[in-house]
């Protein structure tokens, strides 16, 4: 077990280095020099060669590639992701400030996905082959295929612009009713596709378990149907579901980019979009690294948790 944890930690570290390298290379070989980007739009006039040289030196762009890479790795591992070109603020600090909003949105959407997905999946499995089963699996198929940006806009059109029930954008901190109202549409937008995935998974996992002898025994003993389904079957169908929920957390975290951009949710994803629109490379680079590293960490935690939840899992 311990050797598994150590091996898994080492592997995660390797993946993080890989992520950093990939980001470095893609930014480095991108056409267009960041300095040109920096001076061309707002500068108005032409920058003197001296100024360009000075800026190149300031950002270390006059150094050979391996030196730049070494510096970049070193500062990234010290959690220094550089400064925004547009407002000169440290990217790491901004990300840390914005992350709670993204975390809240991601957790809320995971809740939406888990609740809807589990309920639909159980209903479908219990009514296998019947109308409810077919209907819910069709809805799940539609849910997987509906682009989240389209769903977000449709929700906004209906519930904010036409009916006026929910605020169209922004975030209220805390857990007040107002805060929850702001959260409903972004969390639904983000969570629906995952709900569909979970519904399919819960259905197949439940169908497997419902065939087991102990379920039949419980039913034969005269245990109530609801109890059989929830206590005997569902509890044993939970394991794969927990794993997928963990893995989906990372997917939702990156999917938040779209939900945040639609609903002006002030999180990490919106920061990334602002960075993209402003061609602010340190912001784009830093945010991508930040989300990818969290993604790696979440997967690591899921893997480790899985071994605690299910002692039967072998690590060789």
């Amino acid at each position: 077990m311990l050797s598994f944890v150590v091996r898994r930690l080492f592997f995660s570290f390797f993946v993080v280095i890989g992520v950093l390298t990939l980001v470095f290379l893609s930014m480095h070989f991108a056409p267009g020099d960041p300095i040109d980007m920096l001076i061309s739009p707002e500068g108005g006039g032409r920058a003197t060669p001296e100024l360009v040289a000075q800026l190149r030196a300031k950002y270390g762009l006059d150094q050979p590639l391996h030196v730049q890479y070494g510096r970049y790795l070193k500062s990234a591992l010290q959690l220094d992701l550089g400064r925004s070109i547009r407002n000169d603020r440290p990217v790491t600090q901004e990300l840390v400030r914005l992350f709670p909003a993204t975390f809240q949105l991601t957790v809320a959407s995971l809740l939406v996905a888990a609740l809807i997905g589990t309920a639909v999946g159980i209903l479908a499995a219990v009514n296998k082959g019947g109308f409810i089963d077919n209907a819910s699996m069709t809805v799940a198929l539609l849910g997987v295929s509906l682009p989240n940006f389209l769903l977000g806009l449709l929700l906004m059109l209906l519930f904010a612009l036409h009916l006026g029930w929910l605020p169209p954008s922004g975030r209220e901190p805390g857990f007040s009713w107002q805060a929850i109202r702001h959260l409903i549409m972004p969390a639904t937008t983000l969570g629906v596709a995952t709900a569909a995935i979970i519904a399919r998974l819960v259905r197949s996992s439940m169908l497997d378990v419902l065939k087991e002898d102990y379920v039949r025994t419980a039913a034969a003993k005269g245990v109530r149907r609801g109890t059989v389904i929830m206590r005997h079957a569902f509890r044993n169908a939970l394991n794969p579901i927990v794993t997928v929920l963990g893995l989906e957390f990372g997917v939702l975290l990156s999917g938040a980019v779209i939900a945040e951009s639609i609903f002006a949710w002030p999180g990490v994803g919106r920061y990334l979009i602002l960075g993209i629109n402003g061609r602010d490379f340190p912001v784009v680079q830093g945010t991508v690294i930040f989300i990818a590293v969290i993604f790696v960490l979440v997967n690591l935690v899921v893997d480790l948790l899985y071994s605690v939840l299910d002692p039967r899992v072998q690590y060789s």
Partner: protein
Amino acid sequence: MRRRLRRFLRSPLTIFAVIVVLLLLVAAVFAPQLATHLPNRQDFRAVLQPPSATHWLGTDEIGRDIYSRVIFGARISVTVGLLSVGLGGLIGILIGLVSGFYGGAVDSVLMRLIDVLLAFPGILLAILLATALGAGLVPVIIAVAAYSVPTFARVMRGSVLSVRTREFVEAARAAGVRDATLLVRHIFLNSFAPVLVYATLLMGGAILTAAALSFLGVGVAPPTPEWGAMISTARTYMRQAPHVILGPGVAIFVTVLAFNILGDALRDALDPKN
């Protein structure tokens, strides 16, 4: 084979999906004939018009015909879908073949590289590459291709591992067939079915990712009639003219749905357990 085809075409959902994909291809190939207007022609006397006999899906904020733009948009989506899945497939399959066939250190190194790609949430990798490469169709294709490489590599490797030790491969090797021929003719062709399934499933994902990139402003640049970009512009005007979102929205939803159904159906039909 015929029995499989019959089984494949048994479900009405699958027939629907096949029809949608055929329509999509027809729209992409015959866009100039099917469109009623030029996709980028502006008409400031007919701005944000609701659907009518002249403008079947209405007009957008600068008076362009939405129906014609949706039709031309099919071209972009099909191009991006086919080329990115093709490119991603080519690279992924190659990696998977080599990795599974040679095993050992080659396998370890290649699979760790694939793990790094998998550690990137797909959309984020696409955003990174599309931002780095700049706006346009080619960057989007590369970005979306990168997103599909790991899946292909994994699937191909798995197939190779299961085929590699089979007797016909042993026999070919004993007969002195060269590695490259062995890989392509004996191993690749025999592990083609799962790759085809994933290619179909990834088509939907690729079209969706490309649209999401344009929606976020890192994809195909305006005024190109791309569905995601159209939806992105439409959000400014959807309050006074909700129809602007309908045409491209339905187009992309139905397309992705069709590819998902087709992928599922192909998987069931090609699954030897059925």
